[in-house]
């Protein structure tokens, strides 16, 4: 959950040849772990996208007579929750918000953090110092503490949780972006471009972005699992998504009082979080090693 501050080093920077990405893809295609993780994630994304069409029951339909039924009860494949709602349907629909809360904060932070980092890295000097010291202030908070403090201060709700998580992820991404940009900036090919009279914008667009976004992207993918677990942790504390929306962290929270009566049913949302975050982690690892030119 705290991998984010562990300072995962970005992949080293080399000038990417045209065939670089296809090479990475080829390597990934030969990696059974990557294929497996990607397949699981693809399945989850498809389920999330088509959830309203494929859920066997109405995920909001409560029934007090059928609450907390075991796995395999009648036509409830995974049992029912504390209000008698079909757990399978809720897990399927819950994939939407859970994936959303995993991916979107990282995505926004990826865009903003990269922009900030590249700007600071490319500008250098005083601007760099100012931007990066401000980022350092946020980075000085352990991620869980920052997320919970922000959400706790702002109050419960999906918007606030999204905002908190985004703020948590901007500093590490900006730092990686800044360090990679600073590296690239000193490279021969950038110096060459500059010497040939290319404008700053062109240099950033052509030379910096092309070489910088890759490592940042890999780093960002490793944050998705962190984001998911953090988001579900917020919901678990009552600071995230609000009911009756299905979200795995919140489902875990509301089902936890049933852990004595239906431990398997109550454990399922946790299992889903687990499977998803492990898939993201494995895919991110594979991506990182595929991009490592040394291997």
């Amino acid at each position, binding site marked *: 959950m705290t991998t984010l501050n562990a300072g995962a080093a970005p992949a080293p920077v080399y000038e990417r040849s045209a065939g670089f990405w296809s090479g990475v893809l080829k390597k990934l295609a030969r990696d059974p772990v990557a294929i497996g993780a990607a397949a699981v994630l693809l399945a989850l994304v498809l389920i999330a996208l088509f959830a309203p069409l494929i859920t066997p029951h109405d995920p909001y*339909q*409560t029934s*007090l007579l059928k*609450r*907390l039924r075991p796995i395999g009860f009648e036509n409830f494949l995974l049992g029912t929750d*504390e*209000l008698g709602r079909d757990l399978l349907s809720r897990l399927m629909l819950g994939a939407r918000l859970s994936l959303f809360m995993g991916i979107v904060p990282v995505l926004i932070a990826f865009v903003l953090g990269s922009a900030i980092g590249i700007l600071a890295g490319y500008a250098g000097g005083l601007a760099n110092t100012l931007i990066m010291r401000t980022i350092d202030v946020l980075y000085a908070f352990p991620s869980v503490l920052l997320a919970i403090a922000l959400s706790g201060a702002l*109050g*419960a709700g999906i918007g606030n949780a999204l905002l908190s998580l985004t703020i948590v992820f901007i500093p590490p991404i900006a730092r990686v972006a800044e360090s990679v940009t600073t590296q690239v900036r000193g490279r021969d090919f950038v110096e060459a471009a500059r010497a040939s009279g290319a404008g700053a914008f062109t240099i950033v667009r052509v030379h910096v972005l092309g070489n910088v976004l890759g490592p940042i992207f890999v780093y960002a993918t490793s944050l998705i699992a962190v984001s998911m677990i953090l988001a579900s942790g917020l919901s678990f504390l*009552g*600071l995230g998504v*609000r*009911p*009756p929306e299905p979200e795995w962290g919140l489902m875990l929270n*509301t089902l*936890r*009082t*049933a*852990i*004595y*009566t239906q431990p398997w049913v109550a454990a399922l949302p946790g299992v889903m979080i687990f499977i998803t975050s492990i898939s993201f982690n494995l895919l991110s690892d594979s991506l990182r090693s595929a991009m490592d030119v040394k291997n």
Partner: protein
Amino acid sequence: MTVRPARLLSALIGCGLIALTSASGSVLAQEKVLRIGMTAADIPRTLGQPDQGFEGNRFTGIPMYDALTQWDLSKADAPSVLIPGLAASWAVDAADKTKWVFKLRPGAKFHDGSAFDADAVVWNVQKVLDKDARHFDASQVGVTASRMPTLRSARKIDELTVELTTSEPDSFLPLNLTNLFMASPAHWEAKLKAVPASVTDPAERAKQAWVAFAADASGTGPFKMSRFVPRERLEVVKNTAYWDPKRTPTIDKVVMLPLPEANARTAALLSGQVDWIEAPAPDAIPQIKSRGFTVYSNPQPHIWPWQLSFAEGSPWLDKRVRHAANLCINRGELKELLGGMMGEAKGIVSPDHPWWGNPSFDVKFDPDAARKLMAEAGHSAAKPLKVKVQVSASGSGQMQPLPMNEYLQESLRQCYFDVELDVLEWNTLFTNWRRGAKDPSASGANAINVTAATMDPFFAMVRFVSTKTFPPVSNNWGFFGNDEFDALIATARTTFEDKERDAALARLHARIVEEAPFVFVAHDVGPRAMSPKVKGVVQPKSWFIDIAPMRVE
């Protein structure tokens, strides 16, 4: 703050090794100890005026302190009524109804040995009402002043007689006084003296004296404070010199632990870490019972409602709609959802209460009648009535707010309601409650789900239906009220004979149920689970429970 992880680590390793080799023989003393797991996240304040709502009064108020008046907690089958406490008797002045004379009980002593007398009462009134008093404590004002809104001052007449003055004639005063616990002035003075001389600011000295008092308190109650670990545990021991022989404890020591997490409480009970837990999770109750524990419950003076808005444009302005919503809820089924841990509400109080008053509108489950009313009001399945309710995900006294509100949402759908739940953080909801339905914080909601304690008439009824309690003054969130209700309230407030006052309150209650400014849903039953070795437990129809007469075997 310089901590060296390396040194700490080596210390840890060393100690771990010692621990593994040393025998773990814990000596079980023969003393009788009762260990309680509370739901509060922190130990309620111990200096006499507890926080943490009524759980505070239950655990750090009533066991350690007494008030002038108290609730009778000795019966499980009748409503808990007011009885004398440290005051033996009281009466309002026949000529000036703002003056009351309280005759004090002789022979009561504080835990520090000092006597309880008229000076002590005056001192305790001053601690929250007299800003110029040396021992005035702002932090105690909030929880206290609002529970006795009309009390203004106290005056000693003789050693065992005090005169209390209210701002207006108020027959509710004796009920309110259950909330003013008597702390020892002598003990506080001793704590003040012990504050280092380097602290010179009198306000700061007083503040530090209160902090010291809270860590080593002195009241007149059946239990004396013996040990206090902030946020972790409070230990009290029996007060063998207690003034009421019926309430002199046989249990040697009571240990109270804050365990806010329902599963942690359950686990603590099942593993034998505590003997008693408050509010076990409903779904864990079968398991708890099957392991031989006893689950006690009894409806409390508490209402779990939707409080409706009468602001302009609110759909609830139509009485048919209010009645329809009340008729559309299958409270029996809801009770089943909560594992039986709920009382079905038919009004603010239950029909066996002196304030019931036989309202002509019967709050029950009758979906056909509800749909008929809704149809008359112009709504149908195709054209449902949109309502928005602010609710919380948790909160003191809120029972299981999410499942319950989701259940209401589903139930009301069959009566052409389209309910939107706006889930807020508990404190935000609570703050909004004071701001009212017209405040932007209501964000368009036309009902709010905040539960209420209904022990005293002001809290149970007056604050919800008086035009004088519109926000931000008090909790008439929905701006319900008119001349008729103001008159009913005035009558009750100025009727000083107990029976007649109750009759006046019953008339008020009957009209409230008939006008239905609430969707009446549930009463909390205060479930608690105890080990079978705890005997003599009486769970009264109250928020409180008396630990003093219990036994541990």
